[in-house]
């Protein structure tokens, strides 16, 4: 066979170490799908392009490698959009390949032509449309390089059909061309010394761990820092698991849905070292009252993440690993401080106040699920109450073991992300936790799971409602409920059976253990429907417009 553009794509995918892609074909992708036949790249056929993007995202988050998804022009490409935006918000390294109409038809409103570059402009790190097959290899190499370097993110490559089928020589073996040095990481030693000095002198320091710690693989360094400085830490939602959650210095999740202890101690601390976080509004709540007593040092590779929402006293732009390697020797080894004692007494007081996690029976149930599963389990959490229950009760024991859509809050993420995670890390057990609402949003992926017989445990927490929205209406709209009821007519176990997946239903207030055991014992995929009271909310909660310490404990607050 003569070499054509599609072969170049497969050549570069192999060169980049890609052996799995997630996608959906169309007439315009066929040159690629044809050449995939004899390649070492496995193509998983999803049941919706949105799910292909989420699966590539889940794959990337579980493995740390670049996730790749592919869709045809027009509707295939537009179906990727939510998945690309989700990856963008959480800085997932991803390459999205979209087919496009032939170059001769561009701009003519040809069948299934859409300006996907224009549509995805604000939600990609960069994008390319290839107009010459001789540039294809270099463009793809650049796309991969960009996706994974600096602050990672999705890069889209739009591939006109004629480019895919043009004859061309095989791509020369070549290193990726040098890209613009986006980030000046020249080590600002003095600034690191200042950060170290301020930390050494502080009496009530706190470390905030954001998603950047995972993205830069800096877990071990962060743990070393915690142990050396005896510094308590909180995490953002994206930072969960960067350090083993059962570490004694962990105060929990900060922010509007965070733990009381974490928010309270951040409010009292005199120094914050923030690593790999952009201080999003979800983390800070009312920004004016965030950490009023603290000097703040921030380390991030993206200069635009620094001081975006809050004044930073000691900024440092650079790779987290480089920064921490330089910082660690400057940090004094500390003894246990008065601060840690104070934290301990608050921890004791809080434990008595809200029943442990504030997640009620739903939280207890999730804890039981985790206890029944192997330690080496990856959990994907969807969005809604089920997400908050999961991130507050699941003890993430390793950095990539808890995967959820933080920045975008995309309902329907957890099921396809679990597919990507399972395929990326087949040696780990994978549990997808979802609400009933989010489950409907990518329910078709049961077919993918069943077709490939992926042993994913699917936990549908069914409260018959858009639970999180219900809680907001209940608390802040005088319980004027509207458009939140999903009903109880749908039999999810029967639905799963229809897709070829066994399952069972339990109620969290009866005896959930039997169902959990059946799920754990099943060899292949399994769906466990867990019925929960619609008023099983999350407490405490921070009302809109309030600060991180103005917590509500029930609707009468």
């Amino acid at each position, binding site marked *: 066979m003569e070499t054509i553009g599609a072969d170049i794509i497969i050549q570069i995918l192999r060169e980049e170490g890609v052996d799995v892609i997630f996608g959906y074909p169309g007439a315009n992708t066929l040159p690629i799908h044809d050449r995939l036949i004899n390649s070492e790249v496995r193509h998983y056929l999803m049941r919706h392009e949105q799910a292909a993007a989420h699966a590539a995202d889940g794959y990337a988050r579980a493995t740390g490698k670049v996730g790749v998804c592919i869709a045809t022009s027009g509707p295939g490409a537009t179906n990727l959009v939510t998945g690309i935006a989700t990856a963008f918000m959480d800085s997932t390294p991803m390459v999205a390949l979209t087919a496009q109409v032939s170059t001769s038809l561009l701009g003519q409103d040809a069948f299934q032509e859409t300006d996907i570059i224009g549509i995805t402009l604000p939600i990609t790190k960069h994008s390319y449309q290839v107009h010459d097959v001789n540039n294809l290899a270099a463009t793809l190499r650049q796309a991969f390089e*960009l996706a994974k370097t600096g602050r990672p993110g999705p890069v889209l490559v739009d591939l006109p059909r004629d480019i895919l089928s043009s004859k061309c020589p095989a791509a020369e073996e070549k290193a990726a061309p040098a890209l613009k040095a986006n980030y000046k990481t020249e080590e600002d030693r003095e600034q690191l010394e200042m950060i170290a000095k301020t930390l050494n002198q502080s009496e009530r320091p706190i470390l905030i761990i954001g998603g950047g710690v995972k993205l830069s693989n800096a877990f071990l360094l962060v743990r070393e820092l915690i142990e050396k400085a005896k510094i308590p830490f909180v995490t953002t939602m994206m930072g969960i698991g960067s350090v083993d959650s059962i570490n004694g210095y962990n105060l929990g999740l900060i922010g509007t849905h965070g733990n009381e202890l974490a928010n309270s101690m951040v409010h009292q601390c005199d120094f914050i070292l923030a690593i790999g976080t952009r201080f999003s509004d979800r983390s800070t709540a009312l920004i004016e009252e965030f950490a009023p007593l603290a000097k703040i040092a921030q380390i991030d590779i993206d200069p635009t993440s620094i001081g975006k929402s809050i004044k930073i006293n000691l900024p440092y732009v650079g790779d987290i690993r480089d920064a921490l390697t330089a910082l660690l020797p400057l940090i004094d080894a500390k003894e246990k401080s008065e601060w840690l004692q104070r934290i301990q007494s608050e921890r004791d007081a809080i434990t008595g106040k809200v029943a442990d996690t504030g997640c009620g029976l739903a939280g207890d149930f999730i804890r039981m699920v985790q206890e029944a599963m192997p330690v080496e389990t990856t959990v994907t959490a969807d969005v809604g109450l089920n997400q908050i229950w999961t991130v507050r009760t699941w003890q993430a024991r390793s950095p990539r073991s808890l995967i959820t859509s933080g920045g975008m809050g995309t309902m329907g993420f957890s099921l396809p992300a679990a597919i990507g995670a399972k395929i990326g890390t087949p040696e780990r057990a994978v549990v997808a936790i979802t609400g009933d609402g989010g489950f409907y949003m990518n329910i078709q992926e049961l077919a993918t799971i069943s077709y490939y017989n992926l042993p994913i445990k699917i936990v549908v927490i069914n409260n018959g409602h858009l639970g999180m929205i219900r809680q907001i209406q209940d608390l802040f709209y005088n319980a004027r409920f509207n458009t939140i009821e999903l009903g109880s007519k749908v039999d999810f176990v029967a639905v799963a059976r229809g897709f070829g997946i066994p399952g069972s239903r339990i109620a969290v207030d009866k005896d959930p253990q039997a169902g959990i055991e059946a799920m754990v014992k099943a060899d292949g995929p399994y769906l466990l429907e867990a019925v929960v009271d619609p008023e099983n909310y999350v407490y405490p909660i921070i009302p809109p417009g309030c600060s991180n310490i103005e917590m509500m404990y029930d609707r009468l607050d």
Partner: protein
Amino acid sequence: MLKKAREQEQTISILVNNQPGVLSRVGGVFGRHGYNIKSLCVAETTNRDVSRITLTSESDPDFTEKIKKQLDKLVDVIEVSDVSGQSYIQRELMLIGLTVKEGAYSDILRAIELFGCRIVTMTPDYFILELTGQPDETAAFLKFFQSFGVEEINRTGSIAIERTKPQRRI
């Protein structure tokens, strides 16, 4: 649209890859952050792979954080520089169509001489004038002639060039 109008202005020069779609990426940064672009000029440089965008935008104390750093992140942006300072020469070209009323003739001719502008074409009651100057000169020119009856106006917006021989060739 988003916030109250910003009082200040800032002119910046952006070297970019000379490729389709780059202008919309650059423009998108301004639009997404709610900064209105006041004028814009794009042209190739001595290196045909590189274009220079000279742009005057609304500005405020957040401009550097919100705009310049974001522009720096765009893959197609090579360099962003602030050209408002002393080290740059700035010029703008302005064309105005002027109604010439009875009795104003000699005042207008004197002003034309004073401003050093050029009459591009004229009929007894309508002049088209051309002026090249620094942004404050074009502003003064416009303000002055407005009292005579300006019918049409078009201007290029600022372009700028470094005063001294550039260190780095692109």
